[in-house]
């Protein structure tokens, strides 16, 4: 039910957003756009040597995957609200189901499944080639800035 939020003032195009996003943490990690729907977005995190957390195995650090899922779920909120409105991550919980395979691009899908006047509720999963073999699962909330002092 989304009847309790104001009608969006303008649309939000995550493809254009990520094309224009050449600065900041997401750009530094190499996060890119894959696809989106009415309340979800898929982003990619290509494997790179400077994202590795364990040099012996070449496995990605968990931090970049957390950042990927934070961004994918964040975009899910903008899509569900139909506008690029300011919000902040309130909490995020991630389960690391298995290590990402070295050399593989990680795909993160974030979905906003409920919004209220103040809060967006999100969930998502990450995989490295087969969506049926997820490597991480997240659940979290975003707080909308316009309703807080």
């Amino acid at each position: 039910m989304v009847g309790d939020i104001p009608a969006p003032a303008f649309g939000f195009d995550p493809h254009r957003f990520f094309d224009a996003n050449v600065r900041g943490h997401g750009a530094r990690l190499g996060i890119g756009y894959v696809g989106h729907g009415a309340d979800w977005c898929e982003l990619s995190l290509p494997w790179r040597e400077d994202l590795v957390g364990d040099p012996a195995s070449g496995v990605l650090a968990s931090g970049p995957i957390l950042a990927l899922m934070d961004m994918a779920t964040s975009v899910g909120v903008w899509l569900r609200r139909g506008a690029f409105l300011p919000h902040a991550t309130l909490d995020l919980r991630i389960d690391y189901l298995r290590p990402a395979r070295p050399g593989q691009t990680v795909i993160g899908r974030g979905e906003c499944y409920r919004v209220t006047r103040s809060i967006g509720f999100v969930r998502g999963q990450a995989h490295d080639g087969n969506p049926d073999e997820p490597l991480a699962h997240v659940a979290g909330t975003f707080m909308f800035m316009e309703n807080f002092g």
Partner: protein
Amino acid sequence: MKLPPYAELLGLSIEPGAEAPVLVMPFADAVLGRPGFVHGGALGGLMEMAAVGALRQALGDDAVRIKPINLSVDYMRGGRNKPTRARGHVSRLGNRIANIEVLAWQDDEARPIAAGRINYLIVR
């Protein structure tokens, strides 16, 4: 504690401590989220490194392998244009599982900007 390549990307440095090190992340374009604020993912990454530092110091044995199981972060204040510090506290060190609490702050440790709980699997 030897920092991995990802920690270098975040620009982390280590301040040794009696129980656990403090990890310091400078404010830079590489960790920027919405304009003027630290990215939640970078902040979580810093906190994970602080948790690893606390656990490594508690274990005192680099041959032991550790694997992150899960992480839960509460973001309490926006991270501003200044360095962010984080320190982990090992609340329980078992044979197979370690439970770690992490706080991140900027000016005042008593006013954290984020709090996290992280569980690690220990492979001996």
